[in-house]
């Protein structure tokens, strides 16, 4: 479904990614792991068309590497950034509506689904999103992207700084996404939920993929974990 090959990315003159190769299949959940500064966020921003890059990015069989971000999104790629970036002055409902690519876009997810999964969003529907807690904002960001009915969602550190209870809610949403046939590329630092839900994973270090395999294979490989994951 998503095929990234020989991806190099740059912020101005600094060369951050050095030939990343990665793929995510249909209805597959894949994790991208690594330490702070490894280049994980840069990878998904590059796929999204938001940083300067060279190399090839293919999605559903066609090259999307040269497209502006809004066209990439319209191909069916969803992006949930680590900084959340909710629209603080707009209400929760308006935030969700802006997730749709056009008025009344129909897809796998309705506003009602979101409210059912996260009742707190229904309670706060008419409140400005900026006054919500960090955890509530994270749910809103995820739901907002789903409202656009993506086929593959790239999610950047969704559980960072969240209470265990909310992490559980988020994990439940991932299950629901899986049931509805979505693919997920999950960026994480901690192994906990990543290992539980993903089928395959990549470990990244210094802008390159240093390990590829199943969760079991990673658990068995202590050397990789020591060198590239544990702090």
């Amino acid at each position, binding site marked *: 479904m998503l095929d990234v090959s020989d991806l190099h990315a740059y912020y101005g003159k600094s060369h951050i990614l050095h030939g990343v190769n990665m793929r995510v299949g249909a209805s597959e959940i894949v994790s991208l792991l690594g330490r702070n500064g490894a280049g994980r966020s840069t990878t998904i921003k590059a796929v*999204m068309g*938001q940083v300067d890059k060279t190399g090839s990015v293919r999605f559903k069989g066609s090259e999307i590497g040269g497209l*502006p*971000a*809004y066209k*990439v*999104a*319209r191909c069916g790629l969803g*992006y949930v*950034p680590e900084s959340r*970036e909710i*629209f*603080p*002055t*707009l209400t929760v409902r*308006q*935030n969700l*509506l*802006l*997730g749709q*690519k056009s*008025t009344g876009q129909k897809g796998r997810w309705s506003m009602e689904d979101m409210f059912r999964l996260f009742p707190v969003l229904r309670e706060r529907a008419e409140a400005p999103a900026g006054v919500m807690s960090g955890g509530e904002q994270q749910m809103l960001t995820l739901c*907002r*992207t789903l409202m*656009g009915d993506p086929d593959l969602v790239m999610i950047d550190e969704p559980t960072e700084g969240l209470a265990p209870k909310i992490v559980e809610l988020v994990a439940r949403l991932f299950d629901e996404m899986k049931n509805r046939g979505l693919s997920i590329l999950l960026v994480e630092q901690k192994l906990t939920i990543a290992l539980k839900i993903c089928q395959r994973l990549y470990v990244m270090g210094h802008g390159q993929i240093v390990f590829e395999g199943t969760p079991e294979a990673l658990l068995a490989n202590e050397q990789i974990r020591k060198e590239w994951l544990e702090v």
Partner: protein
Amino acid sequence: MEFFVVQLLNSLSYGLLLFMLSSGLTLIFSMMGVLNFAHASFYMLGAYFAYQISQHIGFWPALVLAPLLVGVLGAATERWGLRTAHKYGHVAELLFTFGLFYLIEEVVHLIWGRAPVDYRIPAALDFSAFTIFSTSYPAYRVFMMVMSVVMLLSLYLLLTRTRIGLIIQASLSHPHMVEALGHNVPRVFMLVFGGGCALAGLAGVIGGNAFVTEPGMAAAVGTIVFVVVVFGGMGSLAGAFIASLFFGAVQTFSVALDHSLAGLLESLGVALDTSSGWYDVLSLSIAQMAPVLPYLLMVLMLVFRPMGLLGTRET
């Protein structure tokens, strides 16, 4: 009292006109992060276009056509100028708008000359609307106020009640996120820039004949609009609104008042040494100080509250 009421109405109509300019400027700034030095040049173009069009087919068509033309020109400027400059950072953008300011001024010199043009209030609006005590108040000033209020109300409704308005509001905080959700943000930028220019153009159409249409008008109005936006807080529409009305009043009232500090002190019974150098400073009237007053207020604001009245940015 009579003086006060008339001046108050004048400052209101001038303040609303300023807001038609400062609202666009501040919206463009908060969305794209670029301070458009040439914003008032589009105000000037609005006035000149309206003058030219009304020569041929009259004021009413000009009222519609001139702002549209300016808006299209503004959108084209964003699409084929600013967007390219943007790739090279904010300094390049700033220099671009700086160059544009002088370019437009020179083009106006070339086409219409250096002297003011005879752009007049249409005869249909050249009468007295009502009389306050013994002063008759011109209908055109009332028309200006009505036009501004109608435009600004529509702008408000557009921003808060429509989908494109929501996209614009969202782009004020996180343009990259809005784009990642599948919205064509570059086009939204172009529309906002064009819309801001059209609004400035409209201000030129209705202000150019009430005041004067000449090549210096962009620089004169531009600096005041700049002061308004900085004073109100860069990027804040509410701040720009308050500051526009405030500077409308400051400018209107200050030129008409010949009170001075010396006069005030003397009326309080303080004996002043008329031969000292300080006496000359103290006896400067408010009217004499009027040209520096806005800049003085802006500098004071920047010293005591750098983010401006309602601004949130530190810059």
